[in-house]
């Protein structure tokens, strides 16, 4: 434990000082790692700890992004105020999907497929309704003042993403120590046995998905504020759902640091292929290579290393 604490302190110090010494593009890459680790943790809570594999987590991410953006643009809210509202909306959507699906007794693949269909339904709605500006997407007016949740210097988004990532790690850590986490793991390992122990399986799964919804929605707002633009495909597209699933599965589902490790690995591979594409002209179009590598990693990890990369680093971290 002391070794882990030492490593964590070292990593934290490195993360704090990185933007002060590293070139600008590394700051953006670092921001991306922490952001991915944050939204990945949302998938980890419902998919990793509670074992409810989702193919449609973008439904929460997009709900958050659209809620805060609509509150700002259409209703003139301050972005910081809109943020908790977006999280609430994400939690509500998580709650509704969970109550509907788990009441109907959906598990395993059926649950994964229904989340995919929900995300797709939301994408089509956002693509056709006027209050989301349909396919045009929504542009947030640039007014870079901290009071507006917009920063001139990207360093602040870096630190904010770092803070979010740390919060998500603390939430996961609390889960592994607390009763909710233990109950979720019991549900994942064997629902019938969990029920026999007196655990309200339905209620625990609903809690997990609502919490996951709030976290992914917070990520959605962060994304919208960073890039000042969202559209239905960015917000609700399959790619976002797959990204959240991948970082967690590759890093280690059901472990505290899984999403962070997965985000580091995936962003790293992405940067390598991007550099390759920009340096070697023959590899101009190799961007899809990174996703090919993730796909292969996903297969290998599910088939051969179910505890993910986290397994390679630690003795046992999967909370059981």
């Amino acid at each position, binding site marked *: 434990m002391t070794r882990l604490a030492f490593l964590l302190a070292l990593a934290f110090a490195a993360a704090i000082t990185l933007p002060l010494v590293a070139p600008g593009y590394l700051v953006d890459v670092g921001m991306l790692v922490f952001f991915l680790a944050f939204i990945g943790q949302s998938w980890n809570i419902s998919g990793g700890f509670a*074992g409810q*594999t989702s*193919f449609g987590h973008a439904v929460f991410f997009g709900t958050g992004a659209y809620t805060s953006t609509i509150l700002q643009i259409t209703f003139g809210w301050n972005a910081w105020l809109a943020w908790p509202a977006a999280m609430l909306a994400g939690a509500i959507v998580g709650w509704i999907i969970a109550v*509907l*699906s788990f009441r*109907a*007794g*959906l598990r*395993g*693949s*059926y649950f*994964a*497929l*229904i989340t*995919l*269909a*929900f995300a*797709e*339904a939301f994408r*089509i*709605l956002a*693509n*056709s309704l006027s209050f989301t500006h*349909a*396919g045009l997407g929504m542009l947030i007016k640039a007014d870079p003042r901290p009071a507006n949740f917009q920063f001139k210097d990207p360093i602040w988004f870096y630190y904010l993403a770092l803070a979010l990532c740390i919060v998500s790690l603390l939430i996961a850590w609390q889960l592994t120590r607390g009763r909710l986490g233990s109950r979720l793991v019991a549900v994942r390992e064997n629902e019938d046995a969990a029920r026999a122990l007196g655990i309200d399986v339905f209620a625990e799964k609903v809690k997990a998905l609502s919490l996951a919804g709030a976290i992914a929605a917070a990520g959605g707002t962060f994304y919208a504020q960073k890039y000042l633009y969202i559209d239905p495909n960015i917000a609700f597209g*399959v790619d976002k759902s*797959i990204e959240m*699933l991948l970082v967690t*599965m590759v890093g280690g589902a059901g472990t505290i640091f899984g999403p962070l490790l997965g985000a580091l690995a995936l962003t790293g591979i992405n940067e390598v292929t991007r550099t390759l594409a920009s340096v070697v002209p023959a590899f101009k*179009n*190799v961007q*899809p*290579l990174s*996703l*090919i590598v*993730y*796909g*292969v990693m*996903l*297969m*290998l990890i*599910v*088939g*051969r290393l*179910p505890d993910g990369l986290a397994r390679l680093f630690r003795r046992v971290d999967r909370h059981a």
Partner: protein
Amino acid sequence: MLDPGILFAGVLNGLLAGGVYVLVAVGLTLIYGVLHIINFAHGSLLMLAMYAVFFLWRLTGVDPYAALPIVIGGAFVFGYILYRLVIGRLSHGRDENILLITLGVSIVIDNVALLIFGGDTQTIETPYASSFVELGAALLPLPKIISFVASLLLCIVLGLFLARSDTGKAIRAVARERQGARLVGIDVDNIFALSYGIGIACLGAAACLLMPTYYVTPSSGHAFVLVAFTIVVLGGMGSFAGAAVGGLVIGVIESLGGLLLGEQLGQIGISVVFILILLLKPSGLFGARQ
């Protein structure tokens, strides 16, 4: 309100599109019925087969319909090998794991296609593409009628194969009772790979029938995967009659959705049907067991 003539044409066009969906769904339901795996790579494999049809036409000038035997055979071999080398080896344990493996397969296929073929939309031009047949108030594209008939014929052939041939009987035996089949000397692993191959061969056929009126891009798989699952869930996982009825129903729903709600919002019909079926009757119309 809508003119009944337009509505009639919409229903007919939907039925014609649904005819090819039946073939896609039959492949998915066969794989589920025998192997009990949910093949999330189904859409991506269909996309790959559509590219095969496109390149056969582009490079050698083979008409998509004439390409049927080649693409069916190629798809069967591809599916068989994919199962033997990848899916059969990695997928064991919980059904979500198998779903994740096939998701991995689809991510790899989609991006390999993007890497090699680029993101452009590709179409095939055939001399009969703009021929129409008049039926009452409806004007129906000739290639869609040919594809509809061919799709149903192929389904009948597959049905006869499963009902009559020794291999077909072995497949049905494995679907019904895996252990029993093993005990009477059926090579179950081989039957798994064969069934997966046949399921993908159905996609090869569907690709030939789709290409005269459809287009292909590396993301075409996404467009089909939810449609295929909706059909199979609507009909009942593992049910052939269900896949046939489901395919036609979904074709009509899609067509009428576009007609009544507009191009954009009309696509929501599929997702809504899918969600409602899963929530209200997950065993589907013809599924006996959950």
